[in-house]
């Protein structure tokens, strides 16, 4: 199996995901939606497995290869959340997120031959990045929920809306914690220090604290829904700065070893 076949597998997967997403929007055929969407995931996974076999190593080494896993896990995350909490828009959202990474992989195939510096050649690399991407997907969905509640929704906010945001944040925060701590364990293995206040680490801490603030504010002031949603938006801004905004911050560019 080579990268040339990727576009065909991806196309079939995306068509199945789109079909599943449309079925989900109708709101009635939940089992059909999950089945069709799941089939798309199987098709996508079969490409990853085929790559694995033909490369004789797990396809986790290059940026392009890790993007394969983001696309896969985002779709999986979407399916889990949809099955459990039945949000109509969830499958569309995760399909679009996956598609973004598929398109990047199709447009930038040269990345696949790119070299990997020794520090990145670690078994921690893939889990560190993959759990972060899963988390960002979940917290992205929570942000959509906040925008929906604060701006678009005409009717009154309901307990169910808040429960949706809470569940997405709890899942996202758990994976954010995994990502941060896997990073710490990896750094210990690579550089002999688990935390060095590198700007990327500082912003990871800021993002983590911001979501902790949301969770604890929800517990301390369970009825102040609007303020909670504003905290959620603020937290997502921190997340974006941590992810890519940091590359444009003068304070970070000067000193970070983590800009890529």
């Amino acid at each position: 199996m080579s990268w040339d076949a990727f576009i065909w597998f991806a196309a079939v997967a995306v068509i199945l995901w789109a079909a599943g997403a449309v079925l989900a929007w109708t709101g009635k055929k939940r089992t059909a939606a999950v089945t069709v969407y799941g089939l798309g995931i199987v098709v996508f996974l079969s490409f990853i497995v085929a790559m694995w076999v033909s490369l004789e190593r797990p396809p986790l080494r290059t940026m392009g290869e890790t993007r394969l896993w983001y696309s896969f896990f985002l779709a999986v995350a979407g399916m889990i959340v949809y099955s459990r909490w039945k949000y109509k828009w969830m499958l569309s959202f995760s399909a679009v997120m996956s598609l973004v990474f598929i398109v990047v992989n199709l447009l930038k195939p040269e990345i696949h031959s790119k070299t990997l510096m020794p520090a990145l050649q670690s078994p921690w690399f893939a889990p560190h990045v993959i759990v972060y991407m899963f988390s960002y997907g979940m917290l992205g969905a929570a942000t959509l929920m906040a925008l929906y509640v604060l701006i678009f929704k005409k009717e009154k906010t309901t307990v169910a809306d808040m429960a949706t945001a809470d569940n997405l944040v709890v899942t996202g925060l758990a994976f954010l914690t995994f990502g941060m701590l896997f990073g710490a364990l990896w750094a210990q293995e690579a550089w002999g220090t688990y935390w060095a206040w590198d700007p990327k680490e500082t912003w990871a801490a800021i993002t983590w604290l911001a979501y902790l603030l949301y969770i604890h504010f929800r517990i301390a002031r369970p009825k102040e829904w609007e303020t909670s949603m504003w905290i959620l938006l603020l937290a997502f801004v921190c997340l974006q700065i941590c992810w890519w905004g940091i590359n444009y911050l003068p304070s970070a560019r000067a000193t970070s070893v983590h800009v890529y």
Partner: protein
Amino acid sequence: MALFSKPFNLLTGFLFGGGLALTGLLPQIVKGPARWGSLAFPANVIILSLFLVFLAGAFLMRRKSSFFAWLGSPAAAVPSIAWCLVFTLVMGLTAQVPGRGWLGNMISFWPFVLCYIWLTTVVGLVAINHITRVGRSWREVSAVLNHLGLFVVLVCATLGSADKRTLEMTLHEGETVSVAVSEDGTTYDTGLSVRLDDFTMEVYPNGMPKRFASDVVVAGKSGKGTAAVIEVNKPLKIDGWKMYQYGYDEAAGVEGEMSILQLVKDPWLPLVFGGIFMMIAGAFLMMFTGLKREDAR
């Protein structure tokens, strides 16, 4: 007195944090930045013991004193997280370069330090509160792991930092070396004798480094030599030291016959790792237990 029966809430919590930040300016101006290096053993163990005694006392006083009841409650958690978030944000927006004023050395800036001590205190008390309820539900188990794990990490990472040794050992092929140099230039006898047999560097076709590896024989206390290959992401563990591939002769490149190893000894690391694993387990459980929902009632 009825008016002041519950004087500590979210709002006074934010004010408390502001007061703490202002208070921090005092030692900052009088004594200068916090000196983490002065916490070396046994000072750190003494401080830790006193801190734990204080937490136990605060826990026992929680029914008698509204202040200590508040200190272990969500109404203290929110403002302490918020204040730490503010200071960490300032840190993220300011280049951290020693010698660039107070904000350029945020981890030694007293207001920042005091706010994090406050946060650690709250986390510790909340952990104790959840420990007393741990049998009730999986949510309590998750809360114990999350808070206790974070408490252990925060306490051991900060108090233990002064006990951590980070040394550089420069080796040339064929030579045996036992001394290494710290960041401030002090030479230490590591108790190891390290012989570099071969330094290998591989590059990609485009010249990018692909692999650095040092073929070494290391003899520790036992005197028996252990042959090992040390490379990036593959450190060697011996006699409490961890040896990392750190540097090489950049001018010579692939032809180089010199290697720099970094030697790290951190006696508090197992505790920090214990805390990290508790947090991982707690976060995992949290996905299934979810939030305690007050507004759903």
